[in-house]
Each structure stands twice: as structure tokens, then as C-alpha cells.
């Protein structure tokens, strides 16, 4: 009887557990999922909470209810993983043994690593929508906001959902326009990257949107400190090289890290607590029996739910290979697919992988949703997606017409016969 232990009952952990349970007979493998709480939050919904378009209750369901029959759920905090003895020590003292370990514990926010956000209470007028409580508090702050400078700041990468700060800016433009206050509100996106969009085709197609919506962008800004209201009532972001951006309301995306237990587990993670992972087989780089899915990995994909979904199919195949003593397949292509809410009932869709940047066209084929173009259809898609998340993605089903590998048909700039040829324009040669 093999022991499959999955740490984390979020998007990745749940879909892997459900997929594996279908593949493995109950007398062949026990599957256990461990999580410190029983509240599964549909995180893409958090973006809409500050604008009164979603309620935290509507986007939260019990974790254990998303797991199929024959999967054990243990609600417990994790103390550490002992790779040598293949055991996991839980905070309550229980020791769990594993034959295969899946790390699916995601990323956590570590605001305290930024000066100014290190106290138990943040400075006044500094908010985040990356937690349910934060999103609700921000909703109240936005409702009371009558004019001034709003800054949306990514402290540094990596973050979950790199498009969310841009979406927030788009929605803020829509929100204040609807309230008749847009002329009195200044919206600025402050990013450590050298543009809101760094990929050539995205930049070409989407920078116009930022300009049209009068969203300012401050680039190459590495925030060293967040200072609350001073003598003139404004707060300010201060970069490591001494630049400042003043604000009347700041929406901060704090630094992210892996979960704390990773740092307590010798040999498991890197300095940020993410787990070094083979970006094609999804095995950890230190132990073949340890697999990693979703935000917990250090791989160069975006941290996004769609990535966990596309990884799931490959990861489960590789676990089965591993259990059978077969070589694992280096099959994951980095496929990522994201809706970008642009306000006014419209959204964009982007689709890309390790080799191919976001391109125009349609997804998943010529007769699909428009890529890199605002459309109401995409907005409807984004809203419908929550249903698909609970009813298809988490149960570990493939979505109709969409396989794990990034589709090439229907995209502009790739050969019509669908064989991958285009590499990212700026040139990226993989070492080794």
C-alpha cells in the first residue's frame, strides 16, 4: 500500500488528489491531503471584492468538500519535512510517512519583510486585496475615497497572478468613472519591472489600454519602505535608490515567499521558501519522490491557477511513472492562460508557455475566445470561470477542447500547421 501525501489543499493539491484517486485503486494507494485550515478561497475572486462585485463568503468553500471519496483530509499545521526519513512532522506531533510527497502549499504573503509593513497594523491608507480581510477593508476605503492619488504597487516579483495589479488599476478606472469621480482620482501603477508589460506583443497590444484609461506607470521601482501619512497627510513609497511616490491611498501587493515549514525542512527549499523544481517533470530537484505543483515551486512560470491545472495532468502521469519504476516524462511546457479584466464589462485573454510569448489570435483554436483583445465574451468567460473552477478544474477534469499543452492553432505568428517554431522575441537560450 503506497502512501501518497499531499501538503496543501488549495488548487493544485485538490486537483492532484482527485486525479490520482481516479487513477489508483484504493487498495494500492492511500491519499492524504494536509492543510492548516478548511477554507478554500477562489483567489481570482478577490480582485472583485474591493469593487463590491464579490463577497468573500461567495468565493470560499470548505477544502475537504472539494476532495473526492477515498481521500483523507487532515487539518493540521506542518512543522517540517524530513527528506531523509520520508516523513512529515505536523505541529500536533503526528508523524506521517510518505512514498510520494506532493508539495502544494502555495505562496504566502510576507509584508513584514518590507519596512513600514512590518508592524501588526499597516500604516493608514495602505491596503491589499490579496487576502479576504484586506479586500473587504479596501472596499470600505475605496467607498469613502472622494479624490486624490491612488498607487498600486508590486513590491517585488514573484507574486501570485502578475496581471492582478494591472486588472485592479483597470477596475479602479471603471469604478471611479461610474461614481463620477474619475477626474479627481489619479491612478498610478508602480512596478519593479521595466514596464507594465514586458513581452513585446503584450506591450504592443495593451499599452494603449493603460494610456486610454489614464493610468500612469512608474517603472524600475524597488520599494524599500512604505511610509504612512506624514505632515502633509500623504503617504509615500520610497525605493531603495531614494525615489519617492506619494499617495493618498496605496494598494500594495506585498512580498511573497513559500510557506514557513519549507525553511524548516533542510534541503527542501531555497532562500525564499520556494522549492527548486524541474520545470518539465515537476519533480523536486533534490528528491525524485517529491513532486511540486503550483505556486510553491521556484519555476519560471507565472504563479497562477491555470498553471497548476495544466501541470496537474503531467504531474499525475509522472507520479504513476515513478510508482511503476519508470522514467518520468519532461512534458510540462509552462502553459499559462489568464483572463485580464479590463473594466466596463470587458476582459482580455492571454495564453503562453515557456517558449512562446502571448500572441494574438483565438483560443483554444481559430473559433475560440479572442486573444489579447478586449471583448465582452472574455469578461463573461472570466465570470463563468468560477463555476468551471469548482465543478471541473478542482475535480481534476480536463476542460473541453483544452489539453495541457499550449495550443498553437489559432495563434498569429506561429506556422499554420501548428508546430512550435517561434521563440520569445528577446531571445532566451536555456542554459544546460
Amino acid at each position, binding site marked *: 500500500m503506497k502512501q501518497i501525501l499531499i501538503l496543501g489543499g488549495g488548487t493544485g493539491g485538490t486537483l492532484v488528489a482527485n486525479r490520482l484517486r481516479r487513477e489508483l485503486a484504493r487498495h494500492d494507494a492511500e491519499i492524504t491531503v494536509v492543510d492548516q485550515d478548511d477554507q478554500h478561497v477562489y483567489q481570482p475572486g478577490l480582485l472583485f471584492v474591493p469593487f463590491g462585485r464579490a463577497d468573500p463568503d461567495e468565493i470560499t468553500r470548505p477544502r475537504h468538500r472539494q476532495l473526492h471519496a477515498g481521500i483523507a483530509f487532515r487539518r493540521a499545521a506542518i512543522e517540517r519535512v524530513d527528506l531523509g526519513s520520508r516523513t512529515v512532522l505536523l505541529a500536533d506531533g503526528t508523524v506521517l510517512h510518505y512514498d510520494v510527497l506532493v508539495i502544494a502549499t502555495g505562496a504566502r504573503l510576507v509584508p513584514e519583510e518590507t519596512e513600514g509593513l512590518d508592524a501588526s497594523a499597516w500604516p493608514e491608507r495602505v491596503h491589499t486585496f490579496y487576502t479576504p480581510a484586506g479586500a473587504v477593508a479596501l472596499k470600505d476605503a475605496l467607498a469613502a475615497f472622494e479624490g486624490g492619488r491612488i498607487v498600486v504597487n508590486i513590491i*517585488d*516579483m*514573484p507574486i501570485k497572478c*502578475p*496581471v492582478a495589479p494591472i486588472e485592479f488599476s483597470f477596475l479602479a478606472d471603471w469604478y471611479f468613472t461610474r461614481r463620477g469621480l474619475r477626474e479627481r482620482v489619479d491612478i498610478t501603477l508602480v512596478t*519593479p*519591472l*521595466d*514596464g507594465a*508589460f*514586458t*513581452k513585446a506583443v*503584450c506591450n504592443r497590444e495593451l499599452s494603449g489600454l493603460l494610456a486610454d484609461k489614464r493610468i500612469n506607470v512608474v517603472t*524600475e521601482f*524597488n520599494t*524599500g519602505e512604505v511610509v504612512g501619512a506624514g505632515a502633509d497627510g500623504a503617504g509615500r513609497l520610497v525605493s*531603495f*535608490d531614494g525615489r519617492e511616490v506619494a499617495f493618498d491611498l496605496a494598494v500594495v501587493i506585498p*512580498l511573497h515567499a513559500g510557506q514557513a515549514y519549507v525553511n524548516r525542512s533542510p534541503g527542501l527549499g*531555497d*532562500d*525564499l521558501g520556494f522549492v*527548486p523544481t524541474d*520545470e518539465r517533470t515537476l519533480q523536486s530537484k533534490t528528491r525524485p519522490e517529491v513532486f511540486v505543483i503550483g505556486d510553491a515551486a*521556484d*519555476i*519560471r*512560470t*507565472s504563479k497562477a491557477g491555470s498553471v497548476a491545472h495544466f501541470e496537474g495532468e503531467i504531474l499525475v502521469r509522472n507520479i504513476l511513472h515513478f510508482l511503476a519504476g519508470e522514467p518520468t516524462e519532461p512534458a510540462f511546457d509552462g502553459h*499559462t492562460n*489568464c483572463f485580464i479584466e479590463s473594466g466596463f464589462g470587458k476582459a482580455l485573454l*492571454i495564453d*503562453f508557455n*515557456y517558449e512562446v510569448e*502571448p500572441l494574438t489570435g483565438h483560443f483554444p483554436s481559430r473559433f475560440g475566445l479572442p486573444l489579447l483583445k478586449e471583448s465582452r465574451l472574455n469578461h463573461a468567460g472570466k465570470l463563468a470561470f468560477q463555476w468551471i473552477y469548482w465543478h471541473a478544474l478542482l475535480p481534476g477534469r480536463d476542460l473541453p477542447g483544452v489539453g495541457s499543452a499550449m495550443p498553437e492553432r489559432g495563434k498569429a505568428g506561429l506556422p499554420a500547421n501548428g508546430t512550435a517554431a517561434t521563440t520569445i522575441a*528577446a*531571445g*532566451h*537560450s*536555456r*542554459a*544546460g
Partner: protein
Amino acid sequence: MPNVIYAGQAVSVSDDGFFTDPSQWTEEMAPEIARAEGIGQLTELHWQVIKFMRHEYQEKGTGPTVRVLGKTSGVSIKELYQLFPKGPAKTAAKVAGIPKPRGCI
């Protein structure tokens, strides 16, 4: 894709001057690239960062952020900005002959 000459050898670079093929880089080129970026002299600490940049690129397929540099390279963020005043993550990537650290979108 433009070509430039460092240490007497032609290398291909992106439009904003980053190496597109890190294997074309040699240590001899670093001081030349650094001078073009306004860095006069490469000290031990500079080299520590350069080696770290190349190692990170090898391991992760992309250059590190300022935060990772500050945590893991052995050089503090304050020192990093002193060594590479125009922005350590980008400048050190250029000097180390690796592509620009990139965003996902």
C-alpha cells in the same frame, strides 16, 4: 538582433543591450560592459554578484530580482545599489552576460 564587440569578439545582444546567448560571454568582457554602464572598476564584490547572476540564470532560466540578490548573493541591497547604481538586477545582468530579467506578460 544587433552585434557588438567585447574583448575582441562579436556577441549578439537584444535591442537594449542584453546578451541573447549567455554562452558567448567571457570574464574578459565584463569590465568592458561595466564601463559602458558607468562602472569604473570591478571589485571582488562586483564579481561575487556577477557569478551569482550567472549561477541563478543557469539554475532557474532567468536572472534574479533585487530581493533575491539581497537575500542570497551575500551582498546586501544597500551595497548592491552602491555597486550598480542604475539598478542592480538589470545592470548586473548586462555585465554578467545574461538576458534581461523578465516578467511573465
